[in-house]
C-alpha cells in the first residue's frame, strides 16, 4: 500500500512539538494543564503507531500457544479473558502469567513507558 509522506508518527511529533514548545508557554494554568494532557494523548497514539503492529504479531503467537488454536489477536485475547474468568484456565497454567506480564509491559510501553522503570 502506498503511503503518503511524511509518516503519520512524524506528523504527530511535529504537532506535539508545536503544542509543547510554542502554545503551552502562552496559556494560563488551566489550559496549560489541558494541553499537556492532550500532548500526552497524542504521544500515546504516536507510540501505538510505532509499536503495536510488532507487539500484536508476538501477542497472537503467545495467545495461540496458550489456547491451542489460531485466530485474530482481539478474539483470542477475549477468549483467554473468558477462560480465566470462568476458571477454565487455571491461574498457574504454564506460560499464562508470563504472557499477561508481557502484554502489560507492551501496553505500558505505549501508554506510559516511565511506569516500567519506577
Amino acid at each position: 500500500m502506498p503511503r503518503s509522506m511524511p509518516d503519520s508518527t512524524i506528523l504527530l511529533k511535529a504537532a506535539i512539538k508545536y503544542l509543547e514548545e510554542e502554545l503551552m508557554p502562552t496559556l494560563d494554568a488551566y489550559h496549560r494543564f489541558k494541553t499537556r494532557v492532550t500532548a500526552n494523548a497524542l504521544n500515546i497514539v504516536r507510540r501505538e503507531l510505532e509499536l503495536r503492529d510488532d507487539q500484536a504479531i508476538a501477542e497472537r503467537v503467545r495467545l495461540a500457544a496458550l489456547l491451542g488454536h489460531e485466530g485474530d489477536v482481539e478474539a483470542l485475547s477475549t477468549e483467554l479473558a473468558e477462560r480465566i474468568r470462568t476458571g477454565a484456565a487455571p491461574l498457574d497454567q504454564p506460560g499464562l502469567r508470563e504472557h499477561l506480564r508481557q502484554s502489560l509491559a507492551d501496553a505500558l510501553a505505549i501508554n506510559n513507558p516511565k511506569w516500567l522503570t519506577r
Partner: protein
Amino acid sequence: MSGDNFAEKLPLAVARHIGAPGTIHDLQRLTGGANKTTWSFDADVGERQRFILQMSSIPLTAEPDPLAGVSPHLTAEEDAALMQAAVKVGVPAPRVRAVLDPADGLGSGYVTERVDGETLATRILRDDRYAAARKVMTRQCGEILATIHTIPLADAPFLKRFDPAELVAAQRKILAYRGLHLPALEWGLRWAAEHAPKNPRVTCVHGDFRLGNFIVGEEGIRLLLDWEIGQAGDPMQDLAWVCVKTWRFGGPKPVGGFGTREELFAAYEKASGHRVDPAQVRFWEAFGSVKWAVGCLGLGTRGVEEMNVERCAIGRRTEEPLWDFYNLIEGRD
C-alpha cells in the same frame, strides 16, 4: 444542582442552621465532579467564619443505576453523620455545622468548618515546607486509622457491611457491566477471590484513606477528608490503600510515598492494641491495585461518553496498577 437562586438560598440555610445573618462572602467553586460539587465561602454567623459546602448532584434521570449498592457509597446525610461519629472519638474529620434539608431548597449536602492546609500530593511530598510533616505523617496515619477503627458501629448504623469476597465480587460486576474483557485483570480478580481474608475483624472503615484526602500543614496531617465510601469491613484495607503505588504520587516510600510499612504497622499496633498481619495488608494492597485498574477503566469509559481527553487518558492508565499488582504478589516492592 445549584438553581438560579442558589446565591439567595445559601445565606438563608446558613442563618437557619448555623447563625444569623448568614451573609456570604468569597463564594468559590473548588471542584465539580460527577457526584458532588465543593464550594468554599465565609459567612457572618455572629462572627465571620470559614466554611466548606459539599453538594450532591441530583441524578439526571430517574433510571435506577444498575450498579447501585454494588460497592459502598454513602448519601450526603450519612456521610455527615459518619464524620460526626468520627469527630466524637477524636478523629481529625471535618466538623459538620449544617446538614441541608428539603426546607433549604438546595438539594442534599452539608456545611463543614474550613481548615487551611495543603492537599496537593506532589507539594506535600516534595516541598521543603512539609519536611517536618513528612517525618510524623506515617505515625499519624497509624494513630488516625486506629481511632477510626474504634468508631462504634452503633453510632453509624447506616454503614453497610462488605466482606472481602463481596468487595472482590463488586469489581467483577462492574467489569461485566462495562462489557470489558482483559485477561490480566480477570487473572487479578480471580487471584483476589481466591486469596480474600476469611472472617476478618469487622470495624468502621474509611475506605479512601490516602494522600490526596489529607489536609496537611507544616506540623503534619490536620484533617482527613472524603468519608463517602465509609463502610463496615476488614480494617486492614485502610492500612493497605494508603500504600497502593498510585497513591504514592511518585514518592519513594510505600506509605503514601513518605513512610515505611513497618512504621505504619507499629504505630497502628501501639495505638489500637491489635496486631497487624503484613500478609493480610499485602492482600488488600494487591486487591486495591486491581480495584483501581477497574476504576481507571470506568473513568476512561466516562471520558468516551463525554469526549473528555483528560478522562479518556485515565483509561490508558489501567495497566499501571495491574503492573503493580503482579509486582506485589511476586514479592517485589
